[in-house]
């Protein structure tokens, strides 16, 4: 039995310690917003936060996530949408959307580290792959989210219903 803290809730799972966190989330905890794209740390579709850092969950044995704070896309929006999510809607970033939850988690981690990222910061941090080619809008929306967050009390569009 392994104890996990996911999105602020604790869960006990009976799985092999080497099972990648991705599959624990998807098939055992039914948190299916985190996606499988390659299984080899190549695409970023499976990105989650571990203690605030963006990590590819397809390559992280679940045992290594024990005792850490795991945040998935399902836990990103609090009462309001996260500014990244709001900017994503405003700038119509997703196309098929499959890579986007990973994309959003990477972008959210970037903003935590660099509240006003430059284009170069974005290029370096956003290694997620998108087959639909949403990159230009990803960049634009990250800048927009950074601005949104910098304005105190800025109106956030949408709700996390």
């Amino acid at each position, binding site marked *: 039995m392994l104890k996990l803290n996911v999105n602020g809730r604790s869960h006990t799972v009976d799985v092999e310690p080497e099972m990648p966190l991705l599959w624990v989330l998807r098939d055992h905890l039914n948190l299916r917003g985190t996606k*499988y794209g*390659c299984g080899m740390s190549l695409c970023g579709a499976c990105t989650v936060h571990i203690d605030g850092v963006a990590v590819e969950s397809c390559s992280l044995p679940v045992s290594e996530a024990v005792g850490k704070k795991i945040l998935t896309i399902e836990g990103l929006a609090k009462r309001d949408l996260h500014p990244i999510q709001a900017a994503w809607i405003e700038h119509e970033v997703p196309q*098929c*959307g499959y890579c986007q939850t990973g994309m959003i988690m990477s972008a959210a981690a970037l903003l935590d580290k660099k509240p006003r990222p430059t284009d170069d910061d974005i290029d370096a941090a*956003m290694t*997620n792959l*998108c087959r639909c*080619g949403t990159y230009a809008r990803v960049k634009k929306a990250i800048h927009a989210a950074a601005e949104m967050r910098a304005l105190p009390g800025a109106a956030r569009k*949408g709700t996390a219903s």
Partner: protein
Amino acid sequence: MTITLSRRDFMKASAAIGGGLALEFWFPVAAKAAGGVSSTEVNAWVVIHPDDRVVIRIARSEMGQGSYTALAQLVAEELDCDWAKVSAEFASPNEHIRRKRIWGSMSTGGSMGIRGSQDYVRKAGASAREMLVAAAAAQWQVPANECSVDKGVITHVLSGRKLRYGQVAGAAAKLTPPSDVKLRDSKDWKIAGKSMHRLDIPDKVLGKPVFGVDVALPGMLHASIAQCPVFGGKVKSLDARIAEKMRGVKKVLREENFIAVIADSWWRADQALNKIVVEWDVGAHGNASNETIAAMFREGLADPKLPQARKLGDTDAALASAAKVVEAEYQSPYLNHATMEPQTCTAWFKPDGFLEVWTSTQNGEASLAVAAETAGLPQEKVEVHKMMLGGGFGRRGGSQDFVRQGVTIAKSMPGVPVKLMWSRQEDMQHGFYRPASMVRMKGGLDAQGKLVALHTRIACPSILAVLMPEAPLKDGIDFSAVRSFNDAPYEIPNQQVDYARRNGHVPVGFWRAPGQQNAFYRECFIDELASAAGKDPLDFRLAMLRAGDKNRLVLEAVAKAAAWGSPMPPGLHRGLASIDGFGSYTAMVVELSVSAKGVAKVHRVIVAIDSGYVVNPDTCRAQAESNVVYGLSAVFQQENNVRNGRIVESNFHNFRLMPLPDMPKVETVLVPTGGFWGGHGEPAILGIAPAVCNAIFAATGKRIRSLPLKHHDLRKA
């Protein structure tokens, strides 16, 4: 048993077993009968709730291209409802069959989603509006033409009385639909033609489980699959003793051409699959390779008796008397679609004899037919739930292999839902690839540098021969193999296109803009001819296009937007391409640099598109951006090589997708001229390969006649 009932079954099952995380599931449909007040189907496309919410049914699939929203816009425009109250749901394939194909085509390919259904979906909206107005007029006992509508509120103009759509929907549904309706002129559009926010995006940014791979059902098991690595091969023997004992494994399935493991999680199924020792009977193609395939194409090109896909004038004579003859051979590799979501299908043979299927499909009706055939059930006893697609690009329409497998696997476990998902490696190595091909072109210029003859020989697999072997092909000519040559708009008096249909054993399919490799060949060769004639590439093309030709209009539009002919900043170079397809006309300018080390970087892409009409400008721009990236990945990096009969590449390390830092600035110039409906999902990919390669010639003096670019030394000649 109707689908409504079966959906309710799931709801009950979910509630009974305790709700919460463990049994949460999700359907991409509007909740039925919220609060016990039921909605009304005014017609097959339009459902109205008492509180005025409008649900618009969508028959085509949503794979990122945006037609889920754009089709709803077209219906809502004619319906005159309040866009803020509109949501969409997929039409049920089962109901489609039972109601005699009431939703027209469910096929989602060829950039046909909007242009192939705009007429009947707009009429459905207009017809529903008339019925709603007639119902209100009848209630007031006034003539319908004394009523007006604004955002779903009907007003009797003289008396000022008002009724909302939600109040009259029930009465309207009982009326006979009008036999004919008038559609709105696009200049009067209020909802269509505007960049409405896409209806599917909010769920996607929250990570709601909307995709085929996200299906979860009570008691569901998971399957991972391995097919014979050599196409056409079969299972000879297998040793699954270790796999069978692994944790969570429920079954090892052996079929004629694949093996699968069914387990209680996908990872466990896949781990066990990798522990199975399989011996494959690889069949006749175990030695096929890039070399044998190239030899097959060369043999085809040398065939003296090829069918002709176009013959105008006398190319032999014109070439013999030409002042200058230019010849070149071009080729391209196989390409996988690499949809970000791998192929997937969930199937459940239910105790009541009904089969339910959930899948990411570009054609719900085709999925239903394949599922029924595989199950041995009448189509009425099968439902296909259309999920959002994690990319399609042509992989999930004509080829329904994943449905056949998913249903076969679930059939071995009656009563238990099983979700099949392919691993990335399986997906990479068992695609329906963009055909590899080889062409030889010969062009003749007269003394004034005018192109007087073009003879093209094309060796290319036929996609239809693989996906629709029964389709009648005139002279064996597959349009997707000869397009852009057999219908080139340039006024060249002597043209001949010969087609060598050479299929080989690699399955080919519709890869975004099928036949787009011909755009690369043609538009690069036109550049070669322009330079042999000593002409500017733009002038050379314009001189071959009649006044009023729509190709001419987009060329002029892109030239203007890119300031073609103006001096470039040092180090930057331009390339041009003009090409039509999928109902639209496009022209593209690429600006790139090539470093001293030979590294090419695309800085800016300007694309002009005339699609006749534009339903959602922002979505159209997104599609242009998408096509540019999809195209650039192929141009720079991608290829699927064949060795020992199998595909060499296995994942994104050796089949690379363009990463974010390489994203150029994309400027989309929409120039809709009206009078026809063109597509947006594919046209903008057509110009990218030739425009890039023509810019590389401008930068380096090197002609690129094969892709991907990674094999070329781009240091200045």
